[in-house]
């Protein structure tokens, strides 16, 4: 299995070639081919490994490919080694597969950009780092990738640095990049601390050793394991944009749209889920942490979901939606449904990449307009984009038999089973929001009348390099869920849950530690499945009734509300009740409270506030540097006196 080392090598070569000679090549097509070719090559290698692995018995599927010894000082030895197993291979396939499609798409999207080679160099660098993150056999190599993807993300968010960007407390793209990087560093701090603690306890940073001996070294729900997992989870909240470190992701939308699709939706932001899955044994040993993970995950899902309802920037809606979906995944991890989380990572990668690329296609076609209030009626101008985006909307909303349905339903089911009614209820509400805002976006963007200046703006369908990836992703969004059909359905259709049996060995250690509910729940599960389907459809229907005529509709209805015709328009009368009783408060609450208070004031405030405090301290501290040599001598003298008295005091 030594070819595994080639997987990260190809993007590295691509990065080196484009980075060094990109400017001299002067040929977009060639650069695009090198860039995407590198990723395709990695995908091919990963695919080969996948086929090989299928032919092996489950217990032989784990292998460690050592490249060289990275660092060896005394007891501290770390290898550059890749752990090829079911989990890392699945992530590799997602990263390289979707990465390839997005590279191809970028050839069209970035056409004519003055920094075309730089873009592809950064993208390849990103893929290289991401592959190191997921393939690593030890924490330190993962951390290298972890920091590396942060670096690539930083470079790509700031890619169009001269562009104005309207974010919270931010007016400029470069600031958005900086914010993302610094917020992430706060999370990395947790990972670093966790690594130190793990090494102190285990004497190694290898995943396999730690997972195997965790139950021996750590006592269940002891302080050590809780601290370690909390520190790790702090890192995950940074990378995967969970509360309280969620603030950077919406601002990260300042980057080019393919970047949003690849990094800030499909791959990098899921590295938190990867890390928890990789260390599932540790988390399973710490039920306290698990409860916190579930709580934070599900709250993030709901809060971000409701915020998504009031956003008008198409990419911002998708950004909040990503935060919300990541919240679902963490909720799944928190209730011990590791497979469900990874399953949702996969399906989410399909449909969110699709939605982002679709929105990119819209932005491209609309000449960089991102406000959905100024769109509408694009259905006929951009048929392929519309159809694929529509499929993506159905998939994310959880309409039965689209991919999102299976994965989201599995998460909700396990939330109910292991987490209880409350978590399930919040999750269901968040799922309702998802369906609602996604339909709202689709409706305002593609349906109804054109609300832009038809005389001057001529939307056009995007080129083939952009639409073909959309079509492929759309197909995946439809059928991607079939690998994880829940037993309750598969039982009747005689389809096994392929994903679950595939990932079973990876999560065996963690699952064994978590109390499993046994017994027959078929009827409950089917009921809940029906309920969540109804919720998704209700969300869509509600959005449809309000937004099908454009954003003015609800206002127009209010005018008519006072007239006698209102009874005749019974249908809309109900809408109004809905609106008053349900949508109105949610809209108001999410706009006025969750977004403006919780997100902007509290969460942003903490992040910006600490920056302000540091800045203020700096301007005070620098005054201590008076410039007069004798003052320095005095400070030195005081220091010596203090040291002397401390030491002499302690000897007596």
């Amino acid at each position, binding site marked *: 299995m030594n070819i595994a080392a080639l997987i990260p090598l190809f993007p590295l070569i691509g990065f080196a070639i484009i980075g060094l000679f990109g400017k001299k090549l002067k040929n977009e097509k060639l650069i695009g081919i090198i860039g995407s070719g590198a990723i395709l090559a990695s995908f091919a290698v990963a695919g080969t490994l996948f086929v090989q692995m299928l032919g092996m018995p489950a217990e032989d599927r784990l292998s460690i490919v050592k490249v060289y*010894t*990275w*660092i*060896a*000082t*005394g007891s*501290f030895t770390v290898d550059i080694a890749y752990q090829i197993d079911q989990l890392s291979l699945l992530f590799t396939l997602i990263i390289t597969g979707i990465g390839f499609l997005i590279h191809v798409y970028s050839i069209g999207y970035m056409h004519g950009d003055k920094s075309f080679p730089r873009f592809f160099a950064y993208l390849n660098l990103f893929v290289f780092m991401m592959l190191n993150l997921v393939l690593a056999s030890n924490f*330190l190599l993962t*951390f*290298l990738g972890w*920091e*590396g993807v942060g*670096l690539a993300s*930083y*470079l790509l968010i*700031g890619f169009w*640095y*001269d562009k104005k960007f309207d974010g919270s407390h931010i007016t400029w*793209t*470069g*600031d958005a*990049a*900086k914010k993302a*990087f*610094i917020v992430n*560093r*706060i999370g990395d*701090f947790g990972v*670093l*601390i966790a690594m*130190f*603690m793990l*090494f*102190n306890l285990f004497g190694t940073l290898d995943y396999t050793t730690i997972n195997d001996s965790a139950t021996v070294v750590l006592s269940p729900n002891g302080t050590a394991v809780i601290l370690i997992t909390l520190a790790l989870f702090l890192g995950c909240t940074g990378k995967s944009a969970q509360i309280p470190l969620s603030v950077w992701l919406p601002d990260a939308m300042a980057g080019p749209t393919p970047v949003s699709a690849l990094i800030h939706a499909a791959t990098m932001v899921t590295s938190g889920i990867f890390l928890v899955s990789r260390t599932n044994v540790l988390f399973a040993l710490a039920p306290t942490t698990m409860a916190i993970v579930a709580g934070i995950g599900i709250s993030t899902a709901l809060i971000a979901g409701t915020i998504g309802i009031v956003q008008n920037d198409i990419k911002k809606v998708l950004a909040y939606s990503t935060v919300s979906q990541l919240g679902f995944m963490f909720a799944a991890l928190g209730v011990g449904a590791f497979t469900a989380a990874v399953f949702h990572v996969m399906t989410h990668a399909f449909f969110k990449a699709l939605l982002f690329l679709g929105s990119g296609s819209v932005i491209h076609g609309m000449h960089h307009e991102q406000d959905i209030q100024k769109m509408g009626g694009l259905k006929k101008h951009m048929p392929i984009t519309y159809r694929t985006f529509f499929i993506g909307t159905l998939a994310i909303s959880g309409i039965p038999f689209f991919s999102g349905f299976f994965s989201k339903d599995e998460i909700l089911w396990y939330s109910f089973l292991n987490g209880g009614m409350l978590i399930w209820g919040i999750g269901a509400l968040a799922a309702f929001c998802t369906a609602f805002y996604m339909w709202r976006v689709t409706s305002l963007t593609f349906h109804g009348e054109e609300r832009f200046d038809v005389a001057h703006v001529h939307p056009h369908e995007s080129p083939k390099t952009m639409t073909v990836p959309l079509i492929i992703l759309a197909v995946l969004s439809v059928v991607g869920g079939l690998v994880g059909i829940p037993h309750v359905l598969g039982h009747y259709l005689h389809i096994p849950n392929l994903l679950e049996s595939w990932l079973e060995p990876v999560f065996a250690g963690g699952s064994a530690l978590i109390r499993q509910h046994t017994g027959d729940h078929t009827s409950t599960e089917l009921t809940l499945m029906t309920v969540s389907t109804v919720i998704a459809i209700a969300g869509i229907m509600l959005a449809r009734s309000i937004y099908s005529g454009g954003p003015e509709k609800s206002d127009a209805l209010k005018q008519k509300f006072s007239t006698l015709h209102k009874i005749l328009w019974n249908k809309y009368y109900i809408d109004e009740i809905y609106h008053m009783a349900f949508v109105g408060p949610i809209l108001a609450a999410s706009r006025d409270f969750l977004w403006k208070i919780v997100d902007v004031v509290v969460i942003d405030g903490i992040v910006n506030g600490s*920056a302000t405090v*540091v*800045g203020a*301290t*700096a*301007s005070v*501290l*620098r005054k*201590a*540097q008076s410039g007069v*040599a004798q*003052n*320095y*001598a005095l*400070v*030195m003298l*005081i*220091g*010596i006196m203090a*040291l*002397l008295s*401390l*030491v*002499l005091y*302690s*000897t007596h």
Partner: protein
Amino acid sequence: MNIDFFGSLPLVAIWLALGAIGIVIQAFVRNNTKLVFGYYVGTLALTAFLAILSSGAKGSSFGGMIVLGGYAAYFDVLFCGAGILAMLAARPYLDRLNAELDEFYTLMVSAVAGMMLMAHASNLVVLFVGVELMSISFYVMAGFLRTDIKSVESALKYFLLGAFATGFLVYGMAMLYGGTGSLDYVEIGKAVSNGTATYPMFLAIGTVLMAAGLSFKVAAFPFHQWAPDVYDGAPTVVTAFMSTAGKAAAFSAFNPVFAAIMPDGVGGITDTMRLALAVMAAVTMLVGNITAIAQTSVKRMLAFSSVAHAGYLMMGIVAGTAYGHSAIVFYLTAYMFMQMGSFVIVGYLEREQGDGSDIENYSGLSKQHPMLAAMMAMFMFSLAGIPPFAGFFGKYMLFYAAIQSGYTWLTIVAVASSVISVYFYLGLIVKMYFTDAPGKKTTFATGTAGFTIAICSVAILLLGIFPWLLTNIISTW
């Protein structure tokens, strides 16, 4: 009196070259800077070569006053390397200022000779001579631009405060001598660990004063305030040299001295001192990093950041373990390359643009000088401790050493302050990459400084990707 001639070769070579031959050459060949430059680069290269040859010859020489091989030989190579890199950068820099006098190179080599003595010292006399040789050379070099008021001011501050600190350092040495009856590290170490000191109180005072004196040399709180002003005012190439090699030399002396006077497991004042040093380290990195945020001059910002790095390095001293010491060696090496590289770039742009090193001058650098900007970005990422650059590993090892010795709180402070530092390192990168230059387009040649920058950046990449290149060497000591 045993003299291991082979092992002492590097020291003998640099002394002969400097004293016997170098001065004679300069006496007869006036104002031939090219010759003197070449001669001293050759001297340092030869010395480094001899040091590599003799690195296996462990032992002591000159009646036990000097240790040989291993650790000391490695530092010989490091100092000579730093000297060569700094000289390569200095030539075009001084040439532009019309200040290239051949004495500059003599001073540089005499500073290197002093540093080597510090690393080789096993006796307080040798340490004292080494420290002073290095410091006096630095005072002159800091004021080398004698018509530039900033340079003279920095020399004056450095000199007054340095001499003041020397007073305490040497008073501390006298106290150690009085307390234990010996100037030899080994003898002092025995007296400390066996508790056989004649006057324990003098020993305690001596320990404190030595710590203070050496903390001054490494620029640790509260003995750090000279550093930003001196580094800011001195000619940039001199800053590049003294903030890296000078700090490395001070730590190379710090390690064995403190291994002797603060050995593990003695308790008493050792524990108190460790705690005090830990607090000093924590405050040093916080003050350095936080004050750096408020700076608008890149040179001054780097000066404060070098204060902060002294704090990180002190964690290894606080840990006091063998692992801590090897972490210091690794980080010093990484730090030398990244800090010198970035200062050389600062000096290079400063002479190009002629209007100082304000951060505004860096806007759009990635457009004008893409290679230079990329390397500067690498140095900044490395200083911030972001993998895969060498700075990350050094930090990792230091942090781990502190945790191993039970100083978890210190590590948390260190990690937090390195998060703060990202802010200003990144600020520079944002300026270089994410802003446009206000329409200036210049081309100029880097001269020999290009080698320095290139070598530094290759080194931090290599050390980051293959850290075992260095850790394998360290583990043989």
